[in-house]
């Protein structure tokens, strides 16, 4: 393990990005950070700029209008950066896969490390996913 990954896994800073979602996944992400699930006790903080982020949480089908933006955000993050696809939409397109605005799924656009399926995934599932991220970094 080099210094970079060692430093990375101490306290994960996450940036959340929605690319044409139904918003439920996004709310469940916020839910993880509020008192009931409280991810902050593990040092996980939601940050306001992709430049500070160690983890990119992506939701939604990534519609055509968002494709460029998603790429742009990914380029702005400091590497190494873990990309997590949250929800059926981001993993595969879900029931929107035949839509004319479909630009994704996410792994066509940027490399994805972890998939958390579900519609929406429960916060518990997201926490389990994040633990896997930590393991992956070891």
């Amino acid at each position, binding site marked *: 393990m080099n210094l970079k990954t060692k430093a990375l896994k101490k306290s994960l800073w996450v940036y959340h990005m929605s690319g044409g979602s139904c*918003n*439920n996944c*996004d*709310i469940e992400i916020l839910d993880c950070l509020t*008192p009931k699930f409280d991810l902050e006790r593990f040092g996980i903080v939601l940050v306001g700029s992709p430049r500070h982020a160690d983890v990119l949480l992506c939701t939604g089908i990534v519609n055509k*209008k968002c494709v460029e933006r998603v790429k742009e955000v990914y380029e702005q993050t400091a590497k190494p950066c873990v990309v997590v696809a949250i929800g059926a939409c981001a993993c595969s397109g879900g*029931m929107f896969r035949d839509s004319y*605005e479909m630009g994704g799924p996410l792994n066509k656009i940027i490399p994805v490390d972890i998939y958390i399926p579900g*519609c929406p995934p429960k916060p518990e599932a997201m926490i389990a996913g994040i633990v896997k991220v930590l393991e992956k970094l070891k």
Partner: protein
Amino acid sequence: MKNNKKTVIVPIGPYHPLLEEPEFFALYCDGEKIVDVEWQAGYNHRGIEKLSESKHWDQVTFLVERICGICSTSHPFAYCNTIENLIGMTIPERAKYIRSIIGELERIHSHLLWMGLAGHFLGYNTVFMWAWKYREPVLDLFEIISGNRNHYAMFKIGGVRRNIENEDIPKIRKMLAEIKGQLEMLIGAVLDDPVLTARLKNVGVLTKQDIKNFGSVGPVARASGVDVDVRRDEPYAAYPLVEWSVITAKNGDVLDKAVVRLSECLEAVKIITQCLDAIEGKAGEIGEEVRRVPEGEGIGRHEAPRGECFHYIRSDGANSPVRHKIRAPSYTNVPTFKASCIGQTISDVAIILAGVDPCYCCTERVAVYDAGKKKKLYDFQHLVELSKQKTERIRKEI
């Protein structure tokens, strides 16, 4: 848009950690004052109206549920009302009550969510954390009833998919009583706070004429004294069978919007309790089988937490819609920023935009922010920062 030299463009969005959805607003400013606002949507557009034409009548309920995650019952509710209007049928009594229970529970969690976000925009993170904490029991209730925290899939044409078991009702009642206590506490804490009142009073005022011009609905309209509520205007489900009242306010500023929303939560608790009384200990059908949707047109509505949700459907007698038009309440609520933002200062924009409780994924069934292309002055974070500073200032003054 007059492009005189002094005007500066401030882009907001599309991405911000607390706007769950991407959205882009360009503010044209003259000094601190806002001269014009432009709204650019489409970052959430998924072409649902078109997809719906390729799905079976029964599948469409799941599709429209995924229009929006916050109000995931409103669209199936309106859709089922539409089909029932088209066929001209009524649904069994128990199904009516169950529908209303789900609809009202959703209103509570949606309004609490808004209260939390509004608190955050003002720099009151305590309100944010509290409101979201008290929202959790509502989601737990949903899990008991439907098996999922969101996207409950309770609706089907002609009734509901799942029963609320009589054995569960005492538990639901108990949780509801707890929620009610917490709600009252939160409402008291928020509305009695002198700083919040000073900060929100007379900010982002919408007049009756503005509401009419933009066709706004829901709490936004009711806060300005326009008394519209589909639940009363065109009774459906169990709403005509229980006692409740429509909440309105006069001023149309953000404070009134907050008051209306919070009081509606208590109204919702009242409705749910009465519905539970009505179904407890009784048996009954929860749905009627609909085998075929005949040729014709139908329009259905539902009062979603954000206002009237409108569906139009044309059928040619085959097994999927020919045209399915969906109008979410935010579609007419968001454009009111034209009336409410202009002339205000930058520090108020965050809360005014949040004040209408925008829900963009609904609006766009049908801002990464262009760094570099436009002159970058503030982004949304700075706006929230400015907003917080103003709250701080007021707090010191009081």
